[in-house]
């Protein structure tokens, strides 16, 4: 009896504080998600008033779709490069900007700014840079690599995506790393230098282990952003030239809304969700294990 009462009390407190959020979370996240999974088993075209259940055939079609798989492969490649480059650059920036150099606050703000501009606008700015400005410079100063638009070549277009994403995200990750650097206990570093450890030793044996929490967060964010990227992809290359830079989000969207294969697109989106969830959970699990106490 007493147990029950306590449960009701707890529920009341919960509803008071978290009720609205839970309600909203269920209606805008959980329900659409479940409905989306339901749609993967139907043949809905996105607009008609009726649809049929078709079992697993959408999933079979999703995996038979060679372009889906190659787009997935391209996305993996993109994620690999952006995650590595973003984190290395952000880490270096953070290291330099916590070393006490002049005007470091100005530089911190400067490197963070790209993150405040939306991906669509960034995409258009860089589209102009790659297809007009660099071509203009390349032609006038005879720099062969810039003499034709990077966006017209499949390989270079892929690298424009990587460059822009790294440029956009490294500022944000830098801020997290800066916080990490500032939280490394000064006494530990001092003790280490008294013991004769040089800068490199201090980095490997003290700073990096103490910064694992920041690294966990940054890796997670870059991984997740990399898999989900759509805006930069849309504004910068639109998947072109000839669909060679169509990353997975864009592919899935086109499948559902352009080709009007809603079921297949939704099934592919669900597969994407599973992969991203799996990758990030594994990453968080392993990097959590590496955390140490000071």
């Amino acid at each position, binding site marked *: 009896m007493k147990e029950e009462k306590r449960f009701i009390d707890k529920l009341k407190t919960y509803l008071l504080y978290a*009720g609205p959020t839970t309600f909203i979370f269920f209606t805008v996240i959980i329900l659409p998600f479940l409905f989306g999974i339901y749609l993967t088993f139907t043949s809905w075209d996105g607009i008609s*008033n009726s649809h049929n259940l078709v079992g697993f055939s959408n999933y079979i079609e999703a995996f038979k779709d060679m372009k889906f798989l190659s787009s997935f492969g391209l996305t993996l490649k993109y994620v690999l490069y952006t995650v590595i480059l973003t984190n290395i650059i952000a880490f270096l920036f953070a290291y330099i900007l916590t070393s006490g150099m002049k005007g470091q606050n100005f530089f911190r703000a400067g490197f963070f700014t790209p993150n405040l501009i939306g991906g669509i606008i960034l995409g258009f700015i860089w589209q102009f840079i790659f*297809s007009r400005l660099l*071509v203009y410079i390349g032609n006038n100063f005879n720099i062969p690599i810039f003499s034709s638009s990077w966006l017209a070549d499949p390989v270079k277009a892929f690298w424009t995506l990587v460059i822009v994403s790294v440029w956009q995200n490294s500022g944000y990750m830098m801020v997290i790393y800066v916080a990490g650097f500032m939280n490394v206990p000064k006494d530990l570093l001092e003790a280490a230098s008294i013991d004769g450890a040089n800068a490199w030793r201090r980095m490997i044996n003290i700073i990096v282990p103490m910064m694992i929490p920041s690294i966990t967060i940054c890796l997670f964010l870059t991984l997740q952003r990399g898999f989900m990227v759509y805006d930069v992809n849309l504004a910068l290359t639109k998947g072109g030239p*000839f669909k060679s830079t169509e990353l997975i989000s864009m592919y899935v969207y086109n499948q559902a*809304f*352009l*080709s009007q294969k809603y079921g297949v697109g939704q099934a592919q989106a669900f597969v994407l969700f599973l992969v991203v969830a799996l990758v990030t959970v594994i990453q968080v699990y392993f990097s959590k294990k590496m955390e140490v106490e000071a």
Partner: protein
Amino acid sequence: MKFKKAISLLMSALVATTLFAGCSKSSENNTPAQTEKKQVKITVLNSKGEIQTQLEEMAKAFMSENQEITVEVIPAPTGQSPFEKVSSLYSSGNAPTLSMLDPGDVVKFKDKVADLSSEKWVNDSFDRSLDAAKVDGKVIGFPFTVEGYGFIYNKEVLDKVYGGNFDASTIKTQNDLEEMFKKIEASGMGSIIVSPMDWSLGGHFLPLSYATQSKSSDEVNKFLEDLKAGKVDLAQNKQFKGLMATLDIMKKHNISKNSPLSGTYENGPEALATKKAAVWFMGNWAWPQIHELDPENNSYAFLPVPISNDANDYGNSEIPVGVTKYFILDKEQNTEEQQAAAKKFLEWIVYSKTGQDYVVNKANIIPAFKNVTVEPQDPLAKSIKNYMSQGKTLQFMVTLPSDHWSKNGASMQKFLDNKIDVNGLAKEIQEYWKSVK
């Protein structure tokens, strides 16, 4: 303790009621205005980005003549298919009263749109202009624009090159075309600019090979059915091979051939206006942009895209013309009053002097109605009317599958960039058609 409990209960109840109050309020919001002042508000989704301002002005003119109706024109983002926009508006419960759709998408909305068969303008529309908007004998779409495309040429330049008067009807074969390009180049100018957009290459250029298969649209439809069934060998198809040979000629003379895929739509009118090129493959919707950059020159016109070296072949002196945008009228999420107001708006477009003036002269649209006698000012529209009056038109393939332009546009871009040859292209297009359900 008891007091605390009461407070917490009260609070949770409060939270719950505000939540639900939020819900009920929004549903009330939909219908207050018209019951009070008889003011009706209709929304019009515009999927022709280039005439957004003209449509807004047109709506204003309509509103000043019809005080009780407010018309709001909302744009669909260019580059996104109107189907995407409209279907997302439907699922969010905000369906526009009138939506401007591509012909191929009209029938998909057949459950949701009003029957327009008894409207006055149905009888005044051009033959076959309602074909794509008919379901089970009912008319569900309002044909808004007639468009056509081909090689846009700058007659001023060509007159100079040909030393006097250039006659477009002398260009009837691929050889004539190449001859013309060479002549232009000999005079020190660039001849043609090929824009690499997928919607242009896949949605307009490639379909020429379907439309030229036969004069009868049944035969063309049968050809597409055969493509779906995998029974057509495109690489051996005369029209397809011929069209790609023409594209080869265009590639050879393309002023941006060093980097054929880097161009954008805007480069086309720019090249024409600055006389870097004299010919551009595009349709009459490009007139506002050309006119803006080259306001003095009204001598632009269309040339057909030849597909062989026999002047008598079908397609060598015809250009594709057809209805490219329809309005549909929603009946599910709009009230009777809104539907009536929308019908009034459509009628106003067709029958009122102001409406006709806005459509023809301001928005540069060729209407699909016989009663409209206003002559278009814009030379490209004139050129199309010319071809129409001579009966030299091809079917504008407007009801192809919704992703046809995108998927095949990518293949065409590969061909334009010399990444694949004509056989590879034929294979990719056949693969696409086999995947269509």
